[in-house]
């Protein structure tokens, strides 16, 4: 019997450096701590950059913030010449175009995601998913280009007939010039659909197989399984993808600038030209003369930043808290 306290001949009593915890100096000498510190510096520089961003937006919007206060967001006069800056037309345009875009993008995007994840055989859905992801790689300015030269003429051709039927509704009244809230919303919808599709598809694929098998065993059709067992299980993740899409739509700049008409007005009709926060920044920033004008535009940037941050955070929260739900069908 070997006593635990007695060292066997030829075996070191204390295995070197295995059981013993290395001191900080030892790790430093072996290079581990150096690598640790360098990578940490890289990672923390991201925090520094983000804090700088917030600080710069805050400091460089101070004149506008002090001059107008909260009225900035709620008044409608945007007159750089007389120094009156009210951002309501831009806020209104941003909200209207983004929500309308979601109304178009959610059904189409979810339908596509369900088809790719659940209904289609894998051999078809893999290449199709690849193509949908290519759509996400198309830059915003190219959507704008196609929007100006293809979509505006196409919509202008169709709209008169549409308005003959629905023109009595206030939201479809007035003359359609091509550039409008509606045009911008359609372009935005096309741009956010790939995000809804690819995230929702992943969420659907992550639903455990047992969830489907249980219902299939009862003799349900594929659609029944999808709609009653898979989608309810994944609904928080799907909501998350919609919030991410909303954040993207709110901040989208180039494509919207090119098709919305850039008129600082508030119209009930979706057929009228309008303006968005991102578009006014893109258009007027380099021409802004005087500190108040510049600070007003940067305050718009600050607003856009704050709103997209809140929505992104909500989306993350939804994705994080995604947990199994009891499905009661």
């Amino acid at each position, binding site marked *: 019997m070997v006593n635990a306290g007695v060292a066997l001949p030829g075996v070191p009593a204390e295995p070197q450096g295995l059981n013993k915890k290395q001191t900080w100096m030892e790790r430093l000498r072996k290079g581990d701590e150096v690598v640790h510190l360098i990578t*940490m510096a*890289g990672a*923390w520089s991201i925090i520094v950059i983000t804090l700088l961003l917030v600080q710069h937006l805050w400091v460089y919007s101070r004149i506008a913030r002090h001059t107008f206060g909260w009225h900035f967001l709620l008044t409608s006069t945007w007159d750089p010449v007389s120094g009156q800056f009210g951002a309501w037309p831009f806020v209104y345009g941003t909200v209207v175009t983004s929500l309308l875009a979601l109304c178009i993008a959610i059904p189409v995007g979810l*339908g596509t995601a369900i088809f790719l994840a659940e209904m289609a055989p894998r051999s078809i859905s893999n290449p199709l998913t690849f193509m*949908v992801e290519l759509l996400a*790689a198309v830059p915003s*300015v190219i959507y704008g280009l196609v929007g100006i030269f293809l979509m505006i003429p196409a919509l202008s051709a169709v709209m008169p007939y549409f308005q003959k039927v629905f023109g009595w509704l206030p939201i479809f009244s007035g003359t359609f010039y091509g550039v409008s809230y509606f045009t911008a919303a359609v372009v935005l919808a096309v741009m956010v659909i790939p995000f809804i599709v690819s995230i929702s598809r992943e969420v659907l694929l992550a639903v455990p197989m047992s969830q489907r098998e249980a219902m299939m065993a009862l003799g349900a059709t594929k659609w029944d399984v999808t709609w009653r067992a898979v989608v309810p299980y994944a609904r928080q993740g799907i909501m998350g993808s919609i919030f991410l899409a909303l954040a993207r739509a709110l901040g989208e700049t*180039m494509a919207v600038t090119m098709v919305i008409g850039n008129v600082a007005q508030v119209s009930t009709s979706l057929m009228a030209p309008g303006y968005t926060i991102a578009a006014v920044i893109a258009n007027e920033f380099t021409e802004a003369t005087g500190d108040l004008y510049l600070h007003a535009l940067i305050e718009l940037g600050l607003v856009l930043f704050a709103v997209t941050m809140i929505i992104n955070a909500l989306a993350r929260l939804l994705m994080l808290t995604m947990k199994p739900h009891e499905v009661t069908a």
Partner: protein
Amino acid sequence: MSATPSYPPASRKIMNVVMLSLTGLCTLLVLSVLFTILGYLLWKGVHALNLNFFINLPAPVGESGGGVANAIVGTLKLLGMATLIGVPIGLLGGIYLSEFAGGWSAFAVRYTTDLLNGVPSVVMGIFVYTLVVLPMHHFSTLAGGIALGIMMIPIALRSTEDFLRAVPRSLREGGLALGASKSETIFTIVIPAAIYGILTGVMLDIARVAGETAPLLFTAFGNQFNSPGWMQPTASLPVVIYNYAISPYDEWHQQAWAAGFVLLSGLLVVSILARMILARGKKMSHG
């Protein structure tokens, strides 16, 4: 109802077929948008392309033979600079999150990275304007590169972290068991095992910012001529497309189409190449 109902009942089977067709129709709609954009761009772009487009400077309205050579060079310079700024930070951050970090530090870095990734591109333009352009008193390639570089960080970091995490634990343990230090294990075993994935992530990241326009409007601005060095405003393909597209001149519209075609085909080639590298890397590590 019959005594021995066949299950599922006909109504459900019909519903199944209807929904299969409806969701399939959605997919068809999305794909047709993709092919319309690609097809239209190809058709318009090829018509407007010629050699002058690649080697000449922009010509005044009314003169033919103008090109966007300065914008092509400008875009390449901006992307080079952005890669030099964004990729090292992203790689270091990714290594830190995957190999070292834990607890509140990892949470803080991850959270801010998501935050930074969600910043609208036009806001990034404002930030770099106040950070670089205002102190320097003029627009520059440097400022544009910094704006694109910061935009590259989150994706570079996230993809690096993901691919490093995918390296099996047994490989790390093997390295440590042979007596290598942690840093030796990371640099000689873990990173080489994930290198295909990391490179793919970087390529996709570059392709993503190559089309960014809004952050360049008030940082790199634009230029009718070549932009020597790094301290002067420079033209870039996305900004040229924007300026030409909203101009009233037909010749400029043609140039916008050609530039759009060049930009998009460049992006798609890089994206597809990146995916091929990834597929090849997977095959090699499995075989």
